[in-house]
């Protein structure tokens, strides 16, 4: 995301802010499952954490779907 930050700061700071917040939320949700350099298997997720990650990733994906327009890729 930070790759796009310089452009987004000018063109759509609101989107940048939303994406940063949501990426942080995804990372926070994943943190308990970090195992050394890798990750615990998906099957180790608790039901509650799976719900939360599903929701946060879904929300992030919806936000990121606005990126092409914000970056002026037309």
């Amino acid at each position, binding site marked *: 995301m930070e790759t796009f930050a310089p452009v987004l700061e000018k063109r759509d700071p609101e989107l940048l802010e939303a994406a940063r917040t949501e990426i942080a939320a995804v990372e926070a949700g994943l943190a308990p499952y970090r195992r050394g350099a890798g*990750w615990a298997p998906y099957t180790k997720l608790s039901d509650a954490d799976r719900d939360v990650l599903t929701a946060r990733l879904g929300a992030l994906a919806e936000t990121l*779907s606005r990126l092409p327009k914000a970056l002026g890729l037309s």
Partner: protein
Amino acid sequence: MSGLTRRGMLQTTLAVAAAGAAGGCAVGAGDGGAASVASAGSATARQFHGAHQVGVVEHPAAFGLLAAFRVVAPDRGALAQTLRAVSAEARNLVDGRTPEPVDPWEPPSDTGVLGVGQRTGVSVTVAVGASLFDDRFGLRRARPRELTVMPYLANDRLDPDRTHGDVLVTLQADRPDALQHALRQLMRRTRSGLVLHWVLDGYNRPDERPTPGRTDNRNLMGFKDGTANPDGTDPALMSQLVWVGPRDGEPAWAVGGSYQAVRKIRMFVEQWDRAPLREQEQILGRHKVSGAPLGSSREEDEPDYAADPHGRQIPLDAHIRLANPRTPHATATRMLRRGFSYSRGFDRAGQLDRGLAFVSYQRRLEHFLEVARRLKGEPLEEYTVTEGGGFFYVLPGARSERDWLGRSLLEA
């Protein structure tokens, strides 16, 4: 756009976000990308704003869908935001508003499933489950008086993956594609707050000219279903039977809402179809072809139980007799049924998995529970099992553009 596709970039960015998690965690990527901006559907005119949600009393539609969600919004403010988003989208869907055209480099604001230029013709009814009234959102004291987690009632084998939920959305439409469109539209706006818990969809045969006391609709046992349903177009009757009023002892926020009981009732159609016609009719209490009460000739004839005290015409344990014994009390406490038939393929034994998505609305949940108690042990149980559903409370309607479903609850 120099070789960089929207989808490719989205995936790249997600991969960055998830920082190597792909090996361990399944990543829910974005929408596959629909093609055009659209709104469509049938001619059914509905209006979103009002004291009550419009989907409750409207005539049964040809297609129905129930979607139960778990709320993952972290706090009360986030829940309010989620319900605002649900309301905004429901308003668009119910009123059939055409979405704003968007820049070609933005994702379409609409799935495009319905094509362009017609109304969506879908009703959206939003209800909340007992589980929402816990400590997560400080709603413990706002729970409607009779709203509980659906207990074991009779002959139940509840599957936790198809039972209960924090929020239940009920969709009705004249076309199945309108349901699929509506569900996706509602979800894309609420991704951070709602996670799907279960979905059940199906169909009815709607009456061309709805007439109280008659219906052409039949359930998957081949019997008419809905003959004795109260008239949803009679506002005084609906106030008596369906809508919670200011003198019902419910929290003030709940006035204008209704209790919704949902039961996923599987029908063992193979066994049923092997039962003799006479046995089927004795179990239900009606003639299979005409829908008339046993011993009568016309569907709209009222069964006369006073004249049949020993059950010679209609057995004492026939379904219609237990469900509605036609006493003054039973008549005054009828529920409004808005269920539909479902089919979910087949089970591992090769038996068709189909049945009735029973949905009823009532002013008091006790009215439903009284019927359930009377039906307990009925002979029909041999051919059915309830596998899911739950108890919910339909939120009062949103009255204006600034109002939203759940505002009275969350701003109370």
